[in-house]
């Protein structure tokens, strides 16, 4: 889904293609996936946000309304992506929602310490999962006021 790189509303960073498939399907159902980009590793996510490497056509100011970030990814993981986003003045306000299988307290604590906006645990049951993703989409795209 890398056909668009400008005016992206949702940046989905998820290495598991099946989870990504379920997430995108749930969002599509409610017309929330119109400007969604799915990247499958942390390094690509950083390049995308900062407009570098293969995404050097992107402007840093062109920020997604919400970044849905998985934690466990190979090479560069979610925490590192979060750190990178939060440590730069230009990008630190972008809303980030962690979506992960991990309910471990230490992960949750670490993410909040780094300034994540929300932490969601992916449920196994499909109905619950779809519901969470849909509510997420509605909230951050339609209800919430973005920083800019």
């Amino acid at each position, binding site marked *: 889904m890398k056909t668009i790189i400008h005016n992206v509303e949702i940046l989905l960073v998820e290495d598991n293609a099946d*989870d990504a498939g379920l997430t995108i399907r749930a969002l599509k159902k409610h017309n929330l996936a119109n400007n969604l980009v799915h990247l499958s590793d942390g390094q690509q996510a950083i390049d995308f946000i900062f407009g570098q490497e293969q995404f050097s056509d992107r402007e840093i100011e062109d920020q997604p309304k919400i970044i849905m970030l998985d934690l466990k990814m190979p090479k560069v993981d979610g925490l590192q992506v979060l750190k990178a986003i939060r440590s730069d003045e230009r990008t630190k306000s972008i809303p980030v929602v962690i979506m992960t299988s991990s309910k*471990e307290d230490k992960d949750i604590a670490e993410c909040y310490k780094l300034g994540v906006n929300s932490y969601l645990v992916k449920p*196994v049951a499909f109905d619950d999962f779809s519901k969470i993703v849909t509510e997420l989409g509605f909230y951050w795209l339609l209800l919430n006021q973005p920083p800019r």
Partner: protein
Amino acid sequence: MGNSEVEIESQLKFLEETQRAILNILDDYSIEKTQAADTQKAVINILEDYSIEKANSEKTNIALANANKELDSFSYSVSHDLRAPLRAIVGYSNILLEDYGDKLDQEGMRILNVIINNVLKMGQLIDDLLAFSRIGKQSLIKVNVDMDALVKTIDSELNIQQEKKIEMNIKSLLSNKCDSSMMKQVMTNLISNALKYSGKKEMSIVEIGSYNDANMNVYYVKDNGVGFDMKYYDKLFGVFQRLHSSNEFEGTGVGLALVHRIINKHGGKVWAEAKVDEGATFFFSLPNN
């Protein structure tokens, strides 16, 4: 014999007695010395044994710490890695139902639902197992818990008083110093059990109360459900032990084991009384301070 001879004799005698006394004292002294040396040897042996034991227990501590670390990463792996493929199975089976359900006959749908339900069961099992193993390594954070408020929260979370005919009889509960999130798990398990096993009755009647017994506060959850046969009492709190089949009542058999583990950790006891088809009452005690 002259005077001087008598004097010399008595002095000699005195000297001999003194000599004998000195020899006795020397003998006693050398016995004491030997005993002291023996005692010293014994003490040194004890000290050596002690330092061997200390080294052994330090080794054991290190081994235990390592085992715990391994268990932690095992649990973590279970928590994360096992759930992802489960989610995919459930998710994509549901997609199959949604998008291709009309191409399946009734049997096909039924089979798909069996798959989905079993995966959901597996997910629940994993969650229960994880919760159970976590209790082992968690330390208690004791605060003053308002048990009334706790039960009210559970009441609204489980959405009791919704559809079914349920009568919740919640008496005023004694507050207690305990770990609040663990206590929530205990009460949630006991209350949902009470509701589950009385679910087949016309009207579920659940009573929750507490009383003081010497230095313990005792809490109970009573239901009017199917109860159980007291001859199987030993199995009640075992992990994965169930007294009913999963056809009769769903469940993984970890709920009561969890309650047992948590209450034990608090220094309390768990017990139950029941009669088949005449309901069950589960009690637990907590030291009141």
